[in-house]
């Protein structure tokens, strides 16, 4: 039920649409998504927009997804290392399992994630596609 709430997703628009994470004001460490406490101990951060480039650390193809993603199945999913350092969990778009290789370069792509039914909200965010 919470998954159909547009509010839960709304507060993450900037984070998800624009890959906005955080930079520790004390030691400069970058985080995506933002965290409460830096590993250096400081709790002061400034927003940081990531470029949207990364490499593929590992990947899989989800054969049958959970309810929200049932109609998108099968889909590829991976862990992407952003150029600036942090790793993120990301769906991989416009590709098949056979296209993927650990270490391949990827770029961010604005995509639809799922819809909360015929009458519900549409949820968007950033996926990654093989660099072309």
């Amino acid at each position, binding site marked *: 039920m919470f998954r159909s709430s547009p509010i839960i997703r709304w507060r993450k628009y900037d984070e998800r*649409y624009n890959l906005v994470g955080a930079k520790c004001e004390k030691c400069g460490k970058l985080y995506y998504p933002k965290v409460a406490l830096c590993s250096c101990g400081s709790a002061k951060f400034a927003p940081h927009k990531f470029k949207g480039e990364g490499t593929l650390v590992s990947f899989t193809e989800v054969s049958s997804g959970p309810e929200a993603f049932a*109609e*998108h199945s099968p889909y590829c999913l991976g862990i992407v290392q952003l150029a600036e350092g942090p790793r993120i969990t990301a*769906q991989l778009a*416009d590709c098949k399992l056979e296209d993927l290789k650990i270490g391949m370069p990827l770029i961010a*792509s*604005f*995509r*639809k994630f799922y819809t909360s039914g015929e009458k519900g909200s549409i949820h968007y965010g950033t996926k990654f596609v093989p660099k*072309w």
Partner: protein
Amino acid sequence: MQNVGLVGYGSYVPKWRIKAETIAEVWGENAERIKNGLGILEKSLPAKDEDTITISVQAARNALLRAGIAGSKIGAIFVGSESHPYAVKPTAATVIDAIQAGFDTMAADTEFACKAGSAAIQMCAGLVKSEMIDYGLAIGADTSQSAPGNALEYSASAGGAAFILGREKKEIVAELERTLSFTSDTPDFWRRGLAEHPEHAGRFTGEPAYFKHILGATQMMLEQSKAKPSDFDFVVFHMPNGKFPIQAAKKLGFSMEQLKSGLVVERIGNTYSGSSLLGLSAVLDIAKAGQKILVTSYGSGAGSDSFIFNTTKRLEEVQSKAKKTEEYIARKEYVSYARYRQHMEMIM
């Protein structure tokens, strides 16, 4: 008043394609006859996770790359489409957040069949020229639907283009010399609110609709600008298929040479609100400085917006700053008819 012009432009076409042959096989039709009759070899379709909103965002981001400005500088965003994902909740709002345009942005979605995007350009031009805003973003994008077995299945496709209007002379890549419209109440093609697919009035969509307004607007434009067809390096017309724009060009006195660079329909189909705009972006991708472009869009219902653009040196500097229209067109993977229908289900 300063002159207004494009300071940035960008396009986006999804990767996926379906061939005319694939569709023809399903319905037992003659693919060669269809391809020759329509002048369309294959068309684009959105990925399962794409829609008019995602296409608009992609095109807008490309336009910002060429303009070399931050999204926060955009003062207005208008998105024209026949396939906005929401009937109520504007595509423009999501674009605002996706380019970080900020709260201080005017915005709305427009509808005028396939000319909704070119109407958006006119709206931005007015706001920029009157100095009410510094930069305006106009987008035309669609993921058009067609009923199984209907002729539109061969042409209704997906794609979009975005244009940023500005006033600063040194930023302009294509000056907007003039724009005007030719509009009337013409019932050639429509869709009622709850209808899944549009209706059309058969052959009436030709002479009294498409041609009347395209020719009307273009002739009016040539008169008012005191120009003749040979003054132009490029001409772009709305492309519902590969034949109508060629016929329009002939009737008006334009050559295939002037038309061909913008004739993207053959390989991606009719992207509706994106059609003439993708043709314009394809031309901008290859034009040199000091060239003249005439664009006349067409939207059923009906109307045509006409534009004259004069390119500048800066155009050549920005062409490679984002993926070109031809790069999107060349990037493709074919799907089966079943897969095509699966994708189209996702944007119902």
